[in-house]
């Protein structure tokens, strides 16, 4: 009983901590003043109206969405396979390889961006989008590998064995048995990959080009000297987007079914 209350209290405090800075931004999106201040002055939806008229923001949102989806799909697939491949056998240099796979996370993303940009120029790849997808896949892969890897440790190996004994080929074992059994981790890694890509600034700084400007870069370059309420409005919409994303995942996959099937 005490434990439960303490837990609820802790959760509440954490929520305040999480949402505190965001409240200021959200409130700021309704201010009548030209810069956000807290508490907001008056109430207006004009910044949302202004944002609705911004075709470039919409285009960037779509660019970011496309990029995030592509990177998420690629990273989830490659990362899950890698995590599974490294889970059991203790091959020579496994720890080193594991660390190597984490390297995009520990290398400064700006530098990775510059380095990758150079390389892409060298190969004369014309599309900045391709460079972005490669870059984003690289930096989101560690998230997938770690989360999926952690879940595989606890996975009952006999499930894969059972599937094999029933004649399942490796891909079927992967997609129909292993992946569903570690679905919570895969879902989490999808969320990670998507959001890390969607919010990525630093690697994108050098990889975006005239044909594609991601939303974070758009916002980053839009801010000239002060956070204006329109940016607060964008941020507010993105928070709503986060919520819709999670609820959407819940509707689509049933978080409850994906999560906690081993009760």
């Amino acid at each position, binding site marked *: 009983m005490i434990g439960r209350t303490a837990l609820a209290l802790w959760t509440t405090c954490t929520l305040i901590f999480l949402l505190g800075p965001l409240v200021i931004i959200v409130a700021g999106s309704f201010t009548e003043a030209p810069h956000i201040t807290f508490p907001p002055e008056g109430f207006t939806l004009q910044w949302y109206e202004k944002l609705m008229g911004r075709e470039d923001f919409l285009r960037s949102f779509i660019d970011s969405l496309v990029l995030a989806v592509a990177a998420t799909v690629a990273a989830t697939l490659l990362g899950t396979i890698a995590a599974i491949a490294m889970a059991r056998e203790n091959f020579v240099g496994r720890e080193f390889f594991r660390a190597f796979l984490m390297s995009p996370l520990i290398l400064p993303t700006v530098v990775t961006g510059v380095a990758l940009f150079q390389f892409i120029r060298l190969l004369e790849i014309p599309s900045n989008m391709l460079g972005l997808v490669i870059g984003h896949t690289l930096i989101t892969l560690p998230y997938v590998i770690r989360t999926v890897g952690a879940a595989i440790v606890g996975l009952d190996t006999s499930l894969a064995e*059972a*599937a094999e*004994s029933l004649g399942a080929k490796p891909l079927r074992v992967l997609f129909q048995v292993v992946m569903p059994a570690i679905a919570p981790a895969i879902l989490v890694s999808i969320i990670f990959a998507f959001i890390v890509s969607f919010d990525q600034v630093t690697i994108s700084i050098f990889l975006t080009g005239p044909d594609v400007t991601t939303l974070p870069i758009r916002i980053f370059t839009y801010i000239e000297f002060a956070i204006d309420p329109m940016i607060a409005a964008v941020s507010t919409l993105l928070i709503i987007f986060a919520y819709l994303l999670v609820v959407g995942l819940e509707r689509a996959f049933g978080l409850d079914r994906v999560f906690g099937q081993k009760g």
Partner: protein
Amino acid sequence: MSSLEINNLHLWYGAFHALRGVDLSIGEGDFLALVGPSGCGKTSLLRSIAGFVHPRKGSIKIGGQDVLRLKPRERNLGMVFQHFALFPHMTAAENVAFGMKCRAVPGSEINDRVKRALDMVGLGQFADRKPRQLSGGQQQRVALARALVIEPNILLLDEPLGALDKKLRIQMQTELQLLQKRLGVTAVFVTHDQEEAMAMADRIAIMRDGELEQLGTPKEIFTAPRTPWAAEFIGSGNVLKGRVLAGENGKTAIDLGAGCDFSLGQPPGTGADEDVTVFVQAEDIRLEPTAGTEGLEVISHRYLGLYVEVMANYRDGVIKALLSPGEAEGVAVGARVIARADAARCKVMEAR
């Protein structure tokens, strides 16, 4: 549909030598029961056959073909795992359908066969339940249905009926036998239920400490255990230590100690003063009340339904007899008895 031949199989888990040279051969369409004490290597053997663990030495041939290099799925076998290994995210029906999907069986046929398989194991109305919503026995039946429905060449069953009540168990045994006959599938199944082994198996293999102790028909195993250990393991029998004596009139006999008189003659190939082991089943022992104090003391009665199991102090252990309730009444706890048995029902073996 295939014979199974295992030669000198050795399996290690790290430094632990789990299978120590198993030789075993099962004919096409045979039903083999694998029995043995907990931890003797039954599951390990099954997993070796299925291909989930890699023996360091030896060979496994299915239908004459060496399969050690084949992947599990290339061995076309069905397995019921000791802990079921049901797919937690699939319903019972989906679990059962899985193997057929792997074989690209058409959808409508899959549905039919799933339904039939689930009906067969009495879970027709639980088709849409997830494993965690099923009881232990129900889960086991799903596992059984899942392995059977793909009609494999070889069936490996690791205590497939262990969680079922007797009635259901017998029903399942019958189904299993029917199916096995119909498909002619070769089956290896682990069981701790001797009745089950007797009733279902064409042959029984007894394992001990990673080795095969005896392989034979149920009758052979039951009536002619090859070693004292097998006798002790299988039977509800008594394994008694004796010594060959040069008795009166130049006749020799076996001395089993005070209170035990089986009138056994000298077995062939033994000499005086040699130690031997005598095996006699509990149901072949009679306990006769005696007035004196030289007999054995009855120490317990255990009511087993058909029989009463009566134990009497014997040396530093006990001797066990299965008596009818009537007979048992004559030898209450505390009574003194002499144990007797027909020489013909006793088996004399070299001592261990």
